[in-house]
């Protein structure tokens, strides 16, 4: 079996030095761990490599993926007043979400990996695994209705300017996934803020919210569902329910504090994630499970996560005491329920390349993300959420934090050198 696949691969091997060979090599090492042996150093190597590390992070996100897919469908149907029970119309919601998510996922990987392959060929090294995680993260932090051409541009920007310009995987200063999102945010603000983008397939026509008509993919599934005698999508184009708005808790909070939020969403809804939002950010239990898994297998830094939580609590308490605006009076613990704090904590801030690299630095880094993110969330009315900007901001400062930690180590050693025996 193994030999057969190996022979098949060997027969397909293109000429060395072509871009085809770079791609071949990427797929070959994906199928087989190479037969390289150690030389000149340790003779035995740990079973962990970068591929396994990256894939473990992707595995940790899978629950968010499943829930996110379903929630896209759920929000769509809730908006038009159908199947408002969470598990009602299960197959429709799942398929609707899948049809929405799949193109995003495919485009992300086609564009991102395409650029990676090209640069790997240009620089004559193997394709590195960095984009595996970025590519899995990007669909989760995009609004479900994102136009694919914007997605393409944002990923090209993030990978070329954010990563390859700095030298590839491991060299970037800013988090690639967040860079893609910040590009959408600043280049196409109308697509990623406001109330319409968070629920898929609902358009505002002449001041009225109308759902889109379903496309060929939905009809294809309808044909299958009818065969089973299940409910189907139909034609679409339905009016949204009275008083519909796709507002997220954060935009409500900015306008009217906890009262406005709780009048529309219960804390339980926010906790379980059956609310509009970016695809993967809403379900708090699943994100926490992913975070715990990453901590357990020792890939994400628990220090960054804990200090980020501490930062948020500190700032939340300060705001509660201050109480200058209604949003500041939102009890500090409810900030965990809203928005993408937990997702940013589990998957974004813990990126080892862009986070501080020293133990002490990680505590400082995480804490300031927690503080700054909440400041942006609560005080700045122009930005609906703070973590993206806070993390990118602290990414820039991470080397500086490390510098001070390392200088302290150097000074300690210098002091010892000067001390007489």
């Amino acid at each position: 079996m193994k030999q057969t696949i190996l022979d098949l691969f060997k027969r397909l091997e293109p000429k060395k030095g072509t871009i085809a060979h770079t791609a071949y090599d990427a797929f070959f090492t994906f199928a087989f761990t190479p037969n390289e042996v150690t030389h000149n150093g340790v003779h035995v190597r740990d079973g962990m490599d970068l591929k396994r590390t990256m894939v473990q992070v992707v595995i940790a996100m899978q629950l968010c993926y499943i829930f996110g897919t379903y929630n896209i469908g759920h929000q769509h149907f809730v908006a038009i007043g159908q199947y408002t029970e969470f598990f009602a119309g299960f197959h429709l919601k799942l398929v609707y979400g899948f049809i929405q998510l799949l193109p995003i996922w495919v485009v992300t990987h086609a564009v991102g990996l395409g650029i990676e392959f090209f640069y790997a060929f240009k620089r004559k090294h193997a394709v590195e695994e960095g984009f595996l995680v970025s590519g899995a993260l990007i669909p989760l932090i995009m609004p479900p209705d994102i136009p694919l051409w914007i997605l393409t541009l944002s990923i090209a920007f993030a990978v070329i300017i954010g990563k390859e310009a700095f030298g590839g995987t491991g060299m970037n200063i800013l988090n690639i996934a967040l860079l893609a999102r910040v590009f959408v945010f600043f280049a196409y603000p109308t697509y990623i803020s406001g109330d319409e983008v968070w629920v898929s397939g609902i358009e505002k026509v002449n001041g009225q919210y109308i759902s889109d008509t379903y496309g060929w993919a939905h009809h294809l599934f309808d044909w299958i569902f009818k065969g089973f005698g299940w409910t189907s999508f139909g034609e679409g184009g339905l009016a949204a329910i009275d008083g519909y708005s796709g507002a997220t808790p954060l935009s409500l909070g900015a306008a009217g504090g906890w009262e406005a939020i709780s009048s529309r969403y219960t804390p339980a809804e926010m906790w379980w994630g059956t609310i509009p939002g970016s695809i993967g950010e809403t379900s708090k239990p699943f994100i926490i499970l992913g975070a715990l898994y990453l901590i357990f297998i020792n890939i994400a830094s628990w220090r960054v996560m804990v200090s980020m939580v501490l930062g948020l609590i500190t700032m939340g308490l300060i705001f509660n005491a201050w109480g200058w605006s209604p949003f500041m009076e939102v009890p500090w613990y409810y900030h965990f329920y809203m928005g993408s704090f937990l997702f940013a904590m589990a998957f974004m801030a813990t990126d080892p390349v862009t986070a501080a690299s020293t133990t002490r630095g990680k505590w400082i880094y995480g804490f300031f993300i927690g503080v700054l993110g909440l400041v942006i969330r609560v005080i700045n009315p122009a930005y609906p959420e703070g973590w993206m900007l806070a993390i990118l901001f602290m990414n820039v400062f991470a080397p500086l934090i490390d510098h001070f930690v390392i200088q302290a180590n150097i000074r300690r050693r210098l002091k010892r050198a000067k001390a007489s025996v």
Partner: protein
Amino acid sequence: MKNRVFYLLFLLLLPLGTLLAQSTGGSSNYFVYGILAIAVILFLGLIVQVSDNLLAIEAKRVGADKTGTNFSIFPRLNELLAPKAPAYTEGHTVIRTQRGFDIKLEGEAIKTIDSSVQANTFALQPRNFHGMSPIPKVEVEPRQQVKAGDVLFYDKRYPEIKYVAPVSGEIVAVNRAEKRAIKEVVILADKNMQYREVPAFNLDGSSREELVNFLAEYGAWPLLTQRPFDVVPGLKDVPRDIFISTFDSAPLAPDLNFVVEGRGNHFQKGLDVLSKLTPGRIYLGLDARGEKAPSTVFTKAEGVEQYWFNGKHPVGNVGIQIHHINPIRPQDKVWVLNVQDVITLGALFTERRFNAERVVVLTGAELKQPVYVRTYLGANIGELVKNNLKNDHVRLISGDVLSGKTKSEADFLNFHDDQITVIEEGDDYVLFGWLTPRLVPSVSPALPSFLFPNIQFKANTNTNGEERAFVVTGQYEAVLPMDIYPQHLFKAILANDFEKMEGLGIHELSEEDVALCEFVCTSKQPLQEILREGLDAVHAES
């Protein structure tokens, strides 16, 4: 400090004042009394904490904190959680390193010496000594007869330091490597060993200079290794201290308590000689890991300062022990020796001959019978493992799997090595090797190995992945029990930043110390090679 205490007290009393002012209304004062009680407790706690801190400061000032003793009145968390120290360490301070990793491998040797295993050829390899010129002056010719202790070669820059034959016999070859560098001087050993006569040396009545010249002339000087840089010291060098680790924590390493059996008097004599060479101290690192106490040769050694160590590998590395006892500073020179090197040094005085006898352990999963053998320094590897290999597709290593060197059957044990490890070559493809739950040694819980802490692995030499840029952080620190930032140090070396290399403590490290970092490295970086480049560059600079 004092000001801050007063400030805190003031802050504490401020709300109390307001509370008292409000409570004059006549209602229940229990709340106020409660607050007052808490304040008093806090105040007392503050005093205790401050005096505790002062104690710690005083301990630091007199330098007593370096011993690892807890000077606080509170127990440390790790003292509460740590397993009880073994009984034989009672009355001693045990330095417990928290970080590290033991790679458990198949093929541990049984503690008997197999006298049927004998090597016939031996070699001295100039390349075992860092910084030695590639073409030393060879004093012997093929077919010439030499006695054990006769000079084989010397470095032309330091002609006083002689490198001598470990055995007597006939020189069979002077092998050369690329660019005519001398690879090894090979001796076919006699059945009955002949020794070059060594005159008696009066240790107490002689000056240090006379002792140094004596050691250099009779071949004992290269037994010394100078840190930083791991080089043979110059004759004018005076070490701050001398450090000897009496246990090896590397995978499948020899049990030095067994190795030293019957040679205790040489070992003690070696220590006595060393104490004449340094104005500082001789430090002995003792093993507090096992249930049984180490050999009395080590525990009852005289004229030395003993430190007990407990923890996972690399706790047995002398570099780690130095860091915890008295770290090497950039201007310092310290010497380190292996236990068997000390024995050879001592035998020069007790037996008056250059006795390079070595107990070598043959280990590894690919040996039919892992066992100890008695031979001499620089023995031929092929002869030692003859008829003992399970198959011929194996890697022969002089040393352990972490910091040992790859050898062929025609090669010889390195100068300081007392271990041969034989493991399987791993030049095979693994289908989805990065995804499947493989049972390979690993520090990571992402692989199932962590579920079986006592399993002995049959590891092979596969890299288990390809080389990548540094991505994961905090990984090296987790297995290096030193106050050092290894990843930043490696980056400084790659960037040729001398100031930072020194600042981050390159002079405290040796390749064996970072070998475990290299093992765990997700990016499969060649860390020992990088460190050696850095050490050589800094050495050349100084």
